């Protein structure tokens, strides 16, 4: 049995928003006063200095306070009384909470829910706009998406858990399309919608910003680095978790630049599940007052694209970061050119398929849970989650312990990512072609391989044989292959070549015009990007 749509927590967000904002502001103020040991001037001073420095370097738009206001506050800190400092801190917190907190409008949500499928239908249709007319009819949407977007994993189990628990989706992150794709995947799976934190930059688009703000997304300004803001964000996240709002975090923190599956996860906002869990146990024991808190279940998921919308930009960014001066100085113009993409044109030309695969749900410590939400130990025996949090007879937050617990949860999430990554034809073919390039240039480092000028051609027969070898190796290690990657090697190659040629400015790999039995890598950076998906799984060459 699933949670009925009418009882989805997000649907009541509009009514609860003022309460959530008030509660977040109150708790954030308490937290910061406790951290500052009753001396709020230190926190205010840090916030002022960091914001003055940031806004002096680049005056952003849509700021909570402008540069002159920060300067005024900073100059006045030494003359304010204790009460005035507390009031200033409280006022700043309130402004930030108001800025962060999302909104929800049921009418806008309903419109968006109807719009997302056609929009995704267009995006995921090989014909792009030419297929739009089909995508815009409801039956066409169903037909297209059933072929282009596949959902895998324990969906019915998740539906069961959502009835009495709060789902915290933690997907992989490679594209800005991930949020709408996940949202639509949840909708198709009859799972409840989630709230999620989105970069404030995404809200600057008036249309996108309007829909995101009215559909439960909250704003995260990654440019702000001071502790006050981070604590406001964490408190907000904790409050909405405690109130049972299904949530979504991208533990990678940002889109994978390399194309690989996340090898490190950031646990900041996800870490709020632990104090929320302690609060749950404390309330259930009557140690703290407040309404009962539902158990939280983490749901790792992988989002697997045949083609990635921003692949050129992301891999260029990755190489410029890891290669640093060696890359940028030697080939600056080329690197710049690779970064320049017409986003709109890309959207309309995108061709590909996507698989969303949910992993096994787990508790906040990374222990697997069964359909009833019971935590299990590594041997499948039931374990009592509350006991992990007891100190001297009662559940308590212990920051160092909880940080370590969260690190282990991160390890469990990454393990789930590796187990649930679905490999597509583009990944297989890119891996094979990249390995062959490396074999042709055995003594060169990555940057020379990417930029080595002589054209290298690959014999199609060799590539086909290597595809079979690679698939055998992947299967033997338990990795998952997309059905399109399971057919005869020639079909896999054709699928990948069609995908590479249908969207990117320059195909990663294409058939030679002179000799159809030869394949020519045209964009080595893209080949490298797509093969990184397999490389990050640590599959031997």
């Amino acid at each position, binding site marked *: 049995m699933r949670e009925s749509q009418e009882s989805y927590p997000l649907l009541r967000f509009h009514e609860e928003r003022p309460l959530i904002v008030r509660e977040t502001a109150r708790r954030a103020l308490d937290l910061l006063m406790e951290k500052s040991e009753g001396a709020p001037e230190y926190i205010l001073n840090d916030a002022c200095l960091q914001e003055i420095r940031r806004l002096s370097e680049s005056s952003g738009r849509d700021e909570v306070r402008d540069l002159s206001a920060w300067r005024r506050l900073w100059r006045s800190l030494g003359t304010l009384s204790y009460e005035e400092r507390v009031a200033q801190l409280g006022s700043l917190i309130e402004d930030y909470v108001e800025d962060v907190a999302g909104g929800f409008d049921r009418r806008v949500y309903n419109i968006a829910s109807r719009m997302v499928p056609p929009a995704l239908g267009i995006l995921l249709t090989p014909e792009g706009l030419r297929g739009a007319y089909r995508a815009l009819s409801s039956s066409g949407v169903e037909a297209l998406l059933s072929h282009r977007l596949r959902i895998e994993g324990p969906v019915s189990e998740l539906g069961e858990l959502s009835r009495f628990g709060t789902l915290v989706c933690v997907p992989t992150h490679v594209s800005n399309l991930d949020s709408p794709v996940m949202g639509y995947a949840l909708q198709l799976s009859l799972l409840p919608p989630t709230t999620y934190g989105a970069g404030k930059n995404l809200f600057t688009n008036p249309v996108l910003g309007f829909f995101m703000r009215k559909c439960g997304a909250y704003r995260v300004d990654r440019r702000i680095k001071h502790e006050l803001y981070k604590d406001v964000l964490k408190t907000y996240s904790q409050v909405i978790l405690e109130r049972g709002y299904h949530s979504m975090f991208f533990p990678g923190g940002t889109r994978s630049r390399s194309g690989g599956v996340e090898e490190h996860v950031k646990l900041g906002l996800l870490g709020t599940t632990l104090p929320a869990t302690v609060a749950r146990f404390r309330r259930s024991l009557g140690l703290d007052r407040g309404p009962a808190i539902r158990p939280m279940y983490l749901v790792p998921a992988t989002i697997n694209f045949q083609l990635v919308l921003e692949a050129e930009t992301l891999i260029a960014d990755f190489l410029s970061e890891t290669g640093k001066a060696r890359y940028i100085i030697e080939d600056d113009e080329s690197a710049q050119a690779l970064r320049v993409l017409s986003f709109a044109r890309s959207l309309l030309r995108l061709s590909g398929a996507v698989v969303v695969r949910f992993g096994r749900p787990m508790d906040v*410590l990374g*222990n697997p849970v069964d359909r009833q939400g019971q935590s299990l*130990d*590594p*041997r499948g*025996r039931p*374990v*009592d*989650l*509350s*006991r*992990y*949090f*007891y100190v*001297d007879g009662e559940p308590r937050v*212990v920051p*160092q*312990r909880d940080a*370590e*617990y969260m*690190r*282990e949860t991160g390890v469990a999430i990454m393990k789930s990512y590796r187990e649930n990554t679905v490999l597509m034809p583009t990944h297989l073919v890119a891996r094979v072609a990249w390995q062959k390039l490396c074999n042709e240039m055995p003594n060169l480092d990555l940057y020379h391989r990417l930029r080595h000028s002589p054209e290298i051609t690959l014999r199609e027969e060799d590539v086909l044989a290597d595809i079979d070898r690679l698939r055998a190796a992947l299967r033997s290690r338990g990795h998952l292959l997309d059905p399109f990657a399971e057919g005869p090697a020639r079909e896999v190659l054709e699928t990948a070549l069609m995908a590479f040629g249908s969207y990117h400015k320059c195909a990663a790999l294409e058939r030679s015009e002179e000799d159809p039995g030869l394949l020519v890598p045209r964009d080595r950076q893209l080949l490298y990007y797509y093969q990184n998906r397999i490389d990050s799984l640590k599959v031997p060459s």
Partner: protein
Amino acid sequence: MSKKTIAVIGGGRWARAIAQVIAGNEAEVARVVVHHPQRQGDLAALGDADILILATPAHAVRGILAEAGAVMHGGHYLVHAVGSLEPTTLKRISEVIAEETPVRRVGALAGPALALDLEEARPAALVCGSRFDEVGALMTRVLSSRALRAYASPDLIGVELARAMVAAVALAGGVGQALDLGPAAQAVLVTRGAAEIARLGVALGGSERTFFGLAGLGELLVATQGRGSADFELGMLLGRGEKLADAERKVGRVCDGPTMVREAFRLGQMHRVRMTLISALHHWLGGERTVKEALSDMFQSGTRTE
């Protein structure tokens, strides 16, 4: 902090010695239970304890935990005093604990303290490696006595690896002793051995200072002095020309040295760690070099900075 109930899991001399030290700490410890894994029926006592200390041979760990894991829970602190890796998988004992039990707050004990030292209350020291501050803090409190000093370290991986890899260097020390190479050569074997296992340990996630602290150099000094450890004794017999199987039989105790040499060599190759001593030992134990050739390989391996 309330007094703790502690269960020591293990039936050997090492387990009993640890239990004896802890039982003497009446200010911090309410009760000590010794759970002998081969005796049935007292698993419930483990469930009631606050701290579990595992002091069994490495080969028995997984089986014991698979059974005892049924009464363990998330409130437990589990600290092991096992001086080796799991024999077949070569996993660290904390990894085996994570695979077999629900316990998360795990620590590892190592350092220059023999069972005899604890039994006779001779001065000695142990370090408890754990990622959890509270585990290190608890163990320093319950283990400390007038003769035994206990320290905490956040480097769980380093403590486990240092203790396990000491076996390989102790083996080399035994060979040096048998060949009567003299104190200078012995010092070279020990210090270069410590440096090699430190390099490998760092590549595997440990902290370098752990290998030159109580868990590494501290254990190594104990293992290569006097009668020395089982592996030191094995090295002496091998250095005198005994066959490995005969030597192991004569020692009559568990010797991890040959296995650790093989694994350290393999891991060193995998992580591209320079390991001259371990390579020489590996080739000698594998029959590819004589002991003199191996020593020559080691001492003439090219000029390098230390």
